[in-house]
C-alpha cells in the first residue's frame, strides 16, 4: 500500500525549482509567480496528510518503501506519525510565506533565491518523512547546502563568516552521527531501517557513546548551550527569509532527531543522561534568556530568544511524561509560527530602515500603526501570553516539569518572566514613545503583501492558542506509544 503523498511533498518543490532556475533572473516577475505557484502546490500536496491522517492509528502512515541502494540494504522508506506530520505541513506553509517575503526585497539573482528556498523546503520534508537512517542523514546534510548559499549570497556584511560557521558547525555534528549510524547498521545485522533500530538491543556503553554522537549532531542543530554560538551569527547575517526558515524549521530538525532517533533507539542512555540534558536545557532557558535581555540588535535578540525557547523543547523531551513531550512538540510548532513572525516583523522594519539596532528606532507606532498591532500580537506570543500559541506549549512543559521535579519546573517557569522582559522591553523601545528620528518619521505602513503574510501567521498563532486540540489530538497516539517504548529497557 504505497501512498505517494510524502514523495510529492518532497519532490514537488525540488523539481519545481528546476524551471525556476531555468527561467533565470532576467524575468523576475515571472520567476516570482512561478516560485509562489510551486510553493503553493507544495503546500496543497501536504494537505491530504492532515485530512487523511488516522488519529487512532499507532505507527507510521502514508508509508512508501522501495529499494534505493540494495548493495547496503538502504531503502527509500518514507512514513509519518503524529510526531512528524505537523512539521511537514508547517514547513510547506512557511515556504509560501518566505517566497512572498522575498518578493520585492530580493533584487539580485531572484531565480536562484527562490529555487534555493524551494529545494530546501523539499529536503527538509525529506528529513521529517525519512524512516531509513541513510535517507534521513542524506536529507539532513543536503539541507545545509541551500542554507549556506542563502546566507552567503543574500546575507549581510559578515555573511561569509556566518555561512562558514553555520555549515562547519552543523557538519561537525552530522559526521559524528554518520559513524554512529554505521555502527548501528552493523549491530542491527545490516539494516538501516529506523523502525527496526527501535527494537534493537544495545548494552549501556555503546548506547552512551552513540547517544553522545547523536547529541553532538542534534544539539548543534537545536541549538543547545554551549554549541549555540553559530545561531546568532547566522540569523543576523541571513536575509529575512533565511532567518525565518532557520528559526521556524531548521532548528526543529535537531529536536526532531531526539524524538525520532535518540529516545527510542537509546532509551537507557536517554534516561541515564537525562539529568545532563535537563541541566543543559535549563541553562538555555535561563542563561540565554538573560543574554537575550542585553542584546542591542533585534535579530540577535530574537535569535537568543529562539535558543531559550528551544531549551524548553529539549527539557520537555527529557522529563519523560506525556505533558512534557506533547508540550515540547506543541512548542516546536508554535515557535515555528512565532519566530517566523518575529523575524518577518524585523524584516519589515529592516527593509525600510536598513538597520536592526534597537537604538535606531522608537515611536514606530506613530508611522506604522497596522504593523505595530501585528508586532504586538507576535511579541505577546513570544513571551507566552495565554490565548496565543506560545502559552500552550510552555505551560504544558512547565506542568510536566513540575510533575518531574518541582525545582526544574520552577526554573523553567522563570522564562515566563524573562521572555516577557526581553520581548516586551524591545517592543517598548522600538514601537512606543515619541518618533525617534527622521527615518522613523518617514516610515510607510505595511502594504497588502506584508499584511497578508502577517495575517496568515496571526491567524495561526491565535488559532493554536485558543483551540490547540487539533494539534495535540493528532500527536496523542504517537506520543503515548513513544513513552511506552522509552519506558522499556533495552539492556
Amino acid at each position, binding site marked *: 500500500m504505497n501512498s505517494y503523498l510524502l514523495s510529492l511533498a518532497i519532490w514537488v518543490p525540488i523539481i519545481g525549482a528546476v524551471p525556476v532556475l531555468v527561467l*533565470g533572473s532576467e524575468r523576475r516577475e515571472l520567476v516570482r509567480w512561478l516560485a509562489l505557484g510551486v510553493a503553493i502546490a507544495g503546500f496543497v500536496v501536504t494537505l491530504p496528510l492532515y485530512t487523511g491522517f488516522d488519529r487512532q492509528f499507532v505507527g507510521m502512515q502514508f508509508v512508501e518503501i522501495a529499494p*534505493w*541502494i*540494495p*548493495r*547496503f540494504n538502504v531503502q527509500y522508506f518514507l512514513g509519518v506519525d503524529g510526531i512528524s506530520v505537523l512539521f511537514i505541513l508547517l514547513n510547506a506553509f512557511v515556504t509560501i510565506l518566505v517566497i512572498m517575503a522575498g518578493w520585492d526585497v530580493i533584487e539580485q*539573482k531572484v531565480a*536562484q533565491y527562490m529555487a534555493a528556498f524551494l529545494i530546501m523546503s523539499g529536503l527538509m520534508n525529506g528529513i521529517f518523512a525519512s524512516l531509513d537512517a*541513510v535517507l534521513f*542523514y*542524506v*536529507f539532513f*546534510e*543536503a539541507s*545545509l*547546502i541551500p542554507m*549556506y*548559499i542563502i546566507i*552567503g*549570497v543574500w546575507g549581510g556584511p559578515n*555573511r*561569509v563568516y556566518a*555561512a*562558514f560557521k553555520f*555549515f*562547519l558547525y552543523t*557538519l*561537525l555534528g552530522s*559526521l*559524528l552521527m*554518520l*559513524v554512529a549510524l*554505521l*555502527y548501528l*547498521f*552493523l549491530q542491527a545485522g545490516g539494516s538501516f531501517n529506523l523502525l527496526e533500530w527501535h527494537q534493537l538491543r544495545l548494552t549501556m556503553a555503546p548506547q552512551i557513546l552513540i547517544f553522545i554522537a547523536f547529541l553532538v549532531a542534534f544539539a548543534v542543530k537545536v541549538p543547545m548551550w554551549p554549541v549555540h554560538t553559530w545561531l546568532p551569527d547566522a540569523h543576523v547575517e541571513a536575509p529575512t527569509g533565511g532567518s525565518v526558515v532557520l528559526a521556524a524549521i531548521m532548528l526543529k530538525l535537531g529536536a526532531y532527531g531526539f524524538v525520532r532517533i535518540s529516545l527510542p533507539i537509546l532509551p537507557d542512555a536517554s534516561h541515564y543522561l537525562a539529568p545532563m540534558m535537563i541541566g543543559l536545557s535549563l541553562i538555555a532557558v535561563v542563561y540565554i534568556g538573560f543574554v537575550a535581555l542585553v542584546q542591542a540588535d533585534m535579530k540577535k535578540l530574537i535569535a537568543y530568544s529562539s535558543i531559550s525557547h528551544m531549551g524548553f523543547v529539549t527539557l520537555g523531551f527529557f522529563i519523560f511524561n506525556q505533558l512534557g513531550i506533547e508540550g515540547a512538540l506543541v512548542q516546536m510548532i508554535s515557535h515555528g509560527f512565532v519566530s517566523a513572525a518575529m523575524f518577518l516583523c524585523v524584516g519589515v522594519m529592516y527593509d525600510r530602515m536598513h538597520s536592526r539596532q534597537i537604538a535606531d528606532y522608537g515611536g514606530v507606532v506613530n508611522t506604522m500603526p497596522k504593523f505595530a498591532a501585528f508586532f504586538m500580537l507576535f511579541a505577546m506570543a513570544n513571551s507566552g501570553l495565554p490565548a496565543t500559541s506560545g502559552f500552550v506549549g510552555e505551560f504544558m512543559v512547565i506542568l510536566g516539569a513540575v510533575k518531574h521535579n518541582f525545582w526544574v519546573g520552577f526554573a523553567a517557569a522563570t522564562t515566563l518572566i524573562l521572555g516577557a522582559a526581553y520581548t516586551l522591553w524591545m517592543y517598548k523601545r522600538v514601537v512606543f514613545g515619541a518618533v525617534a528620528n527622521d527615518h522613523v518619521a518617514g516610515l510607510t505602513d505595511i502594504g497588502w503583501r506584508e499584511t497578508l503574510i502577517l495575517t496568515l501567521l496571526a491567524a495561526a498563532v491565535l488559532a493554536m492558542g485558543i483551540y490547540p486540540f487539533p494539534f495535540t489530538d493528532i500527536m496523542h497516539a504517537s506520543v503515548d506509544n513513544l513513552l511506552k517504548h522509552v519506558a522499556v529497557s533495552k539492556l
Partner: protein
Amino acid sequence: MLTNFVVPDLYPAAAELFLLTMACVILVVDLFAGSARRWLTGSLTLLTLVGCAVLTYWNFGDNASLTFANMFVDDPLADFLKLLVYASVIVVLIYGRDYMAERDLDKGEYYLLVLFATLGMMVMISAYNLLAIYLGLELLSLSLYAMVAIDRDSPRATEAAMKYFVLGALASGLLLYGMSMIYGATGTLELGLVAQSVQEGVANRTILTFGLVFLVAGIAFKLGVVPFHLWIPDVYHGAPTAVTLFISSAPKLAAFAMALRLLVSSLFGLAEQWQTMLMLMAVLSIGIGNLAAIAQTNIKRMLAYSAISHMGFMLLALMSGVAGSEVDPMALINAYSSAMYYSVAYVIMSLGAFGMVLLLSRAGYEAENLEDFKGLNKRSPWFAAVMMVLMLSMAGIPFFVGFFAKFAVLLAAVAAKHVVVAVVAVMFSLVGAYYYLRVIKLMYFDPPADSAPIRAGFDVRILLSANGIAVALLGLFPDTLMMLCTATLVRSL
C-alpha cells in the same frame, strides 16, 4: 630452443596489442601529416582508444584467463578498470585539446605519450607477475615524466619533471628491491604462486616482511600518500594543466589495481603487517592532505593536497578487509569493493575539477589561482553549479557520488572495528570541507574579478556538463556503480 616455442594466446591481450600497433601507426602518420594536419593525430588517438574499448568489452568474460606464461591476466576486474581508463583518457584528451593547442603543445609526441602511458596502465592492471607489474609501471612513469616536461620552455614544468623523475626513479628502485626480496623468499615472480608460498608458510617471514615494506613504499609513492606525497603538489602545480588532469585521473586506477594485485592477490598472508602500514599512511594522508590544502591559494596545489587525502581514504578501505584474526569473505569484498568504488568516484570528480580549471584557462592565461573562480556564478551560472557539485562531492556532502564513496569506505572501516580511525577520518573531512566550501564561496559570494566570457568548444561544454551531471546522478542512484565494483571484484579475487 626454437622448437619449444609456443605462440601464446593473444586474445586476452588483444586491446594492448591493438594499442601498441596503433601507436606505431600514429607515430608514422604524424610524421607525414605534420603540424598542419594535427587533427588527424588527435582523431586517430581517440579512435584507437575507442577501438581498445571495443576489444576490451568484447573480451569481458566471467572468469580469468592467463597468458604469456602466466605473466598476464585478463579478468573482469582488469576489463572493468581498463574501460574506465579509456574513458578517462578520452575525457582528458577532449578537455585538454584547446589548452594544448593554444600553447602549441599538442605535438605528435603528446598523443603518443598519452597512448604509451595508457598502455603502461593497461599492463599494470593486467599484470600477473612482479616483473610485468614493474614493466607496466615504468612504461607509465617514463611517459608521465616526459609529459610533465612537454612544455620545454617552462622552467616550472622542467623543475616539476625533474623532481618527479628523481623521486619516481627512487620509488621504482624501492619497488624493485622489494620484489627481489619477495622473489628471494618465495622463489617465484608469479603472483598466484607467491600467494601460495606465503600461505603455506614455507617462505622466510623476515625476508618477506622486509620485501613487503619496500613494496608498500613503492605503491604509496605511486598513489601519492603520506609520507611519499611530496612530489604531488609540485608536479600537479608545475605540469601543464592538461597533463595534471591526466596524472590525477587514470593512473590512480592503475595504482589501485597494482595495490590490489600486490597486497591482496599475492601477499594476503601478510595482511596483518601491511594493514598497520596502510592505516598509518591513510590517517596521515587524510590529516596532512586536508590541513595543507587549506593554506593553498593555487587551485592545482589545493586539488593536489585533496588528492592526497582522497587516496588516504582509499587506503582506509583497503586496510579494512580483515578484522582481527577471522577472515570473513563478505567483509573482504565489502572493503576492497569500497576502495575500488572510491577510486572510481575520485577519478570522475577529479576529471571534472581539473576540467573546470582548463575551462577557465585561455590562450596566454592560466586560471590556476583560486581567485580566478571569483564570481563565476555571474559569468556562467551553469558551470558554477557544475563546479559546486564537484566541490561538494569531493567534500563528501550528499547527494553526490563523493558522499557515497566516503560512506562505503567508512562502513568498511567501522565493520573492521576501526571506529576510532573512522572518527579521525571524518573529523579531518570536516577540515577538508572548509577549503571546498571556500571555492563555492569564491564562485557565489564574491563579485567577479574578470568578466571575460567563457569560451570553450561545444564538445567540451557538453562533456563537462555531463561530468557534473554524472557526479550528481551517481549520487542519487549510487547502487549501479557500487554493484559493478562488487561484481567485478567477486569474480576476480
